[in-house]
C-alpha cells in the first residue's frame, strides 16, 4: 500500500473493526499478588523481575489517585479490580513470529488494515506489533542486526538481554514510585519494545511498533525501553489503537529513554484509543551531555488521557524538543503536556503544543518546566495554541514554571481562539464548502506536528482528525 492508497483507505474501517476474542491465557480480573506471580511465571521471568513487580504492587496499593490536581480528569470509574490485566493471544509462536505469514489470519488481517506490513516494506528498519498483551510480530532488517542494533519485544529482552534490562528497567527514569499508574505498570507490565543502539551507530530509518487492544475490559501495559549509546541516533515510532467497547479499558504504558552523550533519539507516537479507554502513561527520557531528545505525539481517542512526557536534561548542552497535538471530542478529557527538568548548564528545551476541542470535549495543556539552581545559560520556550469549535467544549492551559537559576531565558506563550469566521469565509468564497474549509484550517493548524512525522503517520493523523470531524460540522 503506497501512501496514496493509505489516504484512500476508509479510515473508519481501519480503526473501528473488532475481532472475535480468542485467547490462550487470560488472567483473572483484578490485581493480586497471585496474578502477578502467574504473569511472571507464564513469562518465565527471572526472580529479580518478579521481586520488582511485587514491590511495585505494594507501592501501587499505598499510593493515592492523582485526583487532587486542579482540573484533573475524572478517574472515579477506573477500578483496577474490574480490568483484565493480562491476555496472551492465541498464537503458537510466542514472543513474536518471524514472518508476517506465520501469524494467524485474523491478526494478519487486523494489521493489514492498519497498514503495518506495507509501512515496514516501504520505510522502516524494523517493525514490532503488539496484540493485546504480547508482541505478535517482530522483524528487524539484517543490516541493523549486524551493527549490533537490538530491536525486540520487552519480554524477550528480559530473557536475552537480562543485564541491560536489569540495569535500566524502571530504576532510573520511571521508578514505580513516580506515580500510582507507574506503580501499576511496574506490577503488571507486559510486552512492549526494547531498542538498543550501540555507540556511534546511526539507524537512519525509523523503527516502529504498533499496539492494539482488542478485548473488552482489558488493560494494556506495554513497556518501551530505548537505550541510545553515545553518539548514536534512532527514531522510534509507536502507534496505538483500540476499538470501542462497552466496559472501560485501561492503558497504562511506560516509556523509558536513555539518550547518552551526543546521542539523538526521536520518539514519535500517534495514539487513537477507543472512547472508553483511560490512557494513563508515564514517559520519561534522561538526556546526557550534548544529547538530543525529541518527543512527537498525537493524542487522539480515549475517554481520559493523562500524559506528560518528560525529559531530564542531565548533562550540559542537552536539548529537548516536544511537539504534541491533542484532539478531544464528545465526552473526552485529554489532559496532556510536557515536563522538562533543566539540571545542567546550557540545556535547551522547546515545547510546542496544539489542541483542538469540539462537541463538549476538554483539552488541557499541563506542563512543568523546572530550571535547577546551577543550570546557567539554559533556555526554554513553551508555546501552546488551542482551537475551539463550539461552546460545549473546554480548553485549559496550565503551565507551571519553577525557575531557580537567574542566568536563564524562559518564555511561555499561549493563545486560544475559535475557528476564524473570516478564514472560513475566505475559503468558502473560493468554492470550498464549510466542512472542507474547516478541515483545511485544522490541517493547517496541526501542520507543525505532521511535518515532523514520517508520511504514513502524518497521513494517518490527518485521516484520524478528518474522521473525528466528520458529521460534526456544518
Amino acid at each position, binding site marked *: 500500500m503506497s501512501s496514496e492508497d493509505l489516504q484512500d483507505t476508509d479510515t473508519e474501517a481501519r480503526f473501528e473493526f473488532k475481532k472475535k476474542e480468542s485467547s490462550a491465557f487470560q488472567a483473572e480480573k483484578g490485581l493480586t499478588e497471585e496474578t502477578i506471580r502467574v504473569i511472571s511465571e507464564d513469562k518465565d521471568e527471572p526472580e529479580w523481575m518478579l521481586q520488582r513487580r511485587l514491590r511495585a504492587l505494594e507501592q501501587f496499593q499505598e499510593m493515592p489517585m492523582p485526583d*487532587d490536581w*486542579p*482540573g484533573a480528569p475524572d478517574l472515579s470509574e477506573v477500578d483496577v479490580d474490574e480490568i483484565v490485566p493480562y491476555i496472551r493471544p492465541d498464537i503458537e509462536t510466542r514472543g513474536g513470529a518471524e514472518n508476517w505469514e506465520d501469524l494467524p489470519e485474523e491478526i494478519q488481517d487486523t494489521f493489514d488494515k492498519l497498514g503495518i506490513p506495507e509501512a515496514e516494506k516501504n520505510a522502516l528498519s524494523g517493525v514490532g506489533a503488539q496484540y493485546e498483551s504480547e508482541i505478535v510480530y517482530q522483524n528487524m532488517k539484517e543490516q541493523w542486526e549486524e551493527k549490533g542494533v537490538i530491536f525486540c519485544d520487552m519480554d524477550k529482552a528480559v530473557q536475552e538481554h537480562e543485564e541491560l534490562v536489569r540495569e535500566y528497567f524502571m530504576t532510573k527514569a520511571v521508578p514505580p514510585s513516580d*506515580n500510582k499508574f507507574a506503580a501499576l505498570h511496574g506490577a503488571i507490565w507486559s510486552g512492549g519494545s526494547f531498542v538498543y543502539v550501540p555507540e556511534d551507530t546511526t539507524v537512519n530509518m525509523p523503527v516502529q511498533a504498533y499496539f492494539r487492544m482488542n478485548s473488552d475490559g482489558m488493560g494494556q501495559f506495554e513497556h518501551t525501553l530505548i537505550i541510545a549509546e553515545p553518539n548514536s541516533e534512532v527514531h522510534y515510532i509507536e502507534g496505538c489503537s483500540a476499538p470501542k467497547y462497552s466496559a472501560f479499558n485501561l492503558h497504562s504504558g511506560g516509556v523509558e529513554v536513555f539518550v547518552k552523550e551526543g546521542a539523538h533519539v526521536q520518539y514519535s507516537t500517534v495514539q487513537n484509543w477507543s472512547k472508553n479507554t483511560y490512557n494513563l502513561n508515564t514517559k520519561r527520557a534522561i538526556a546526557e551531555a550534548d544529547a538530543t531528545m525529541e518527543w512527537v505525539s498525537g493524542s487522539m481517542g480515549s475517554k481520559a488521557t493523562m500524559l506528560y512526557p518528560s525529559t531530564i536534561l542531565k548533562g550540559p548542552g542537552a536539548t529537548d524538543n516536544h511537539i504534541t497535538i491533542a484532539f478531544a471530542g464528545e465526552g473526552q478529557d485529554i489532559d496532556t503536556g510536557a515536563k522538562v527538568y533543566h539540571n545542567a548548564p546550557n540545556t535547551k528545551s522547546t515545547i510546542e503544543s496544539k489542541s483542538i476541542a469540539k462537541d463538549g470535549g476538554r483539552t488541557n495543556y499541563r506542563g*512543568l518546566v523546572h530550571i535547577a*539552581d546551577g543550570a546557567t545559560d539554559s533556555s526554554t520556550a513553551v508555546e501552546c495554541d*488551542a482551537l*475551539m*469549535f*463550539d*461552546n460545549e*467544549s*473546554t*480548553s*485549559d*492551559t*496550565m*503551565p*507551571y*514554571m*519553577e*525557575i*531557580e*537559576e*537567574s*542566568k*536563564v*531565558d*524562559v*518564555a*511561555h*506563550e*499561549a*493563545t*486560544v*481562539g*475559535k475557528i476564524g469566521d473570516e478564514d472560513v469565509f475566505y475559503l468558502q468564497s473560493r468554492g470550498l464548502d464549510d466542512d472542507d474549509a474547516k478541515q483545511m484550517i485544522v490541517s493547517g493548524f496541526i501542520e507543525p506536528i505532521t511535518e515532523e512525522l514520517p508520511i504514513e503517520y502524518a497521513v494517518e493523523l490527518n485521516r484520524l482528525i478528518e474522521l473525528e470531524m466528520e458529521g460534526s460540522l456544518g
Partner: protein
Amino acid sequence: MSTQVHAAIDEATVRQISDDLDEPEWLLETRLEALSALDDVDFPDVIKTPGRKWTDLEGLDYDALVDPLSAAESKDQVGPADAEVLPFAEAVAEHEELLREHFGSVVAPETNYLTALSTALFTTGTVVYVPEGVDAEDVTVRTEMNSRSLFNYTLVVAEESSSVTILERQETGEDSVAPTAQRDEGGEAAGMDGDRYYSGITEIVAGENSYVQFGNLQDVDESTYVYSRREAAVDTYGTVNWIECNLGSRLTKSSVESHLDGDSSETKIVGAFYGHDDQHFDVNARVWHNAEHTTADLVTRGVVDDHARSVYEGVQHVGREAWDTNSYQRENTLMLSDESEADAAPKLIINNHDTEASHSATVGQVSAEDMFYMTSRAVDERTARNMLVEGFYVPVFEEIEVEELRDDLRSRIQDRLQARA
C-alpha cells in the same frame, strides 16, 4: 499594648471586638459564623507540583501571631466631600443598610481559613461610598500598623455612573513597639520574636457604568506575614482597574480578582513586586468572565533578588455564557541573583469558544546586550543595571494613572536598588 494577655481565637474575643465597635447583631453573627467555620474550611489554594507546595501558609502559628485585642494602628482616611470615606465603626453607625447589603457579598467570609479568620477578627476598616453619578478623586487610606497583628477591611461601593480613584497603603509605624514573644514551648519558627501578621480584605461593588481605580502599595516591615485578598464584582459597562504593588513583608500571599458579571464590563489587573533578602511573594491575579463582551488585561512585573522567591498564578476563566470575550495576560520576572527563585503558573480556563485569549510569562535576567550597550556609553555597571531594572517596570508604571502611587513605587524601587551592594 498588652503583652500579658494574649487574646485567643475564640468566641469571647470575637464578642469583645464586636462590642467595642458597637456592632449590630447581624454583624456579630457573621463574625461568629466565620469563627466556627475555621474548623471546616481549607487554607487558600497554593500551587502544588509533585513533591512540592509552592507557598506554605499552614506552617504559621496563627494562635501565637494573632492578637486582635491588642491591635493598634494609625490611620488616614481622606476623600473628597461628595464621596463618603468612613472608618468602619462610623459606617456601621451611619450606613448599616449599605453594609448589610454588601458586607461579605464579594469576598465570602468562608472562602478559606484566612478570610474566615479576617472576618471574625477584623478591628479596623474603611468604607468608601460613592453615590450615583459622583466623580470622586483622590481617596486615600493609609494604615500604619503598630501592633503584632492587624486585621483590616475595606469596602468600596460605587453606584451607577460614578467614578472613584482610591489609593491604599500599608506600612509599619516607626514607633511601633517590637512585639514580644508568645513563644510556644520549644519555640517554633513561626510566632517567634518580632513576627507580625497583617490581613487585609478588600471588596469592591462596582455598579452599572461605574469606574473604580484601586491602587495599593504594601510596604510593611520585613518581619510581617501578609495575607491580602481583593475582589471586585463589576456590573454592566463597569470598569475596575487594580494596581497591586508588593514591596514589604517576610511573606505575602496576595490575591486580586475581578468578577466580570455584567455585559461589556472590563478590568485591568496591574501588579508589581520587588523581593529581596529572603522575602517570599505569592501573587495571584484572577479574572472571571461571566458575561458577554467582557475584556480583561493582566500585567504583572516583578524582580527577585538575593534569596527572595516569587510565585505567580494568573487565571483567566471564561464562563460558558461569556460570548465575545477578550482576555490577555502577561507576566515577566527579572532575576537579579542566583539564589533567588521565580515560579510562574499562568492558567487559561476556556468554556466559550467565542474567545480571544492569550497569556505569556517570561523569566530572565538583565540582558547582557543591554548592559553592554549602556556600559559602552560610559554608564558604570551598577548604574546601568539599576536603570535597566527601573526600565523593566516601565510597562507597569505606564498603567498606573495615579501619579502619587507611580512616584512612590518608583522611588521605593530606586531605594532598594541603591541599597543593593
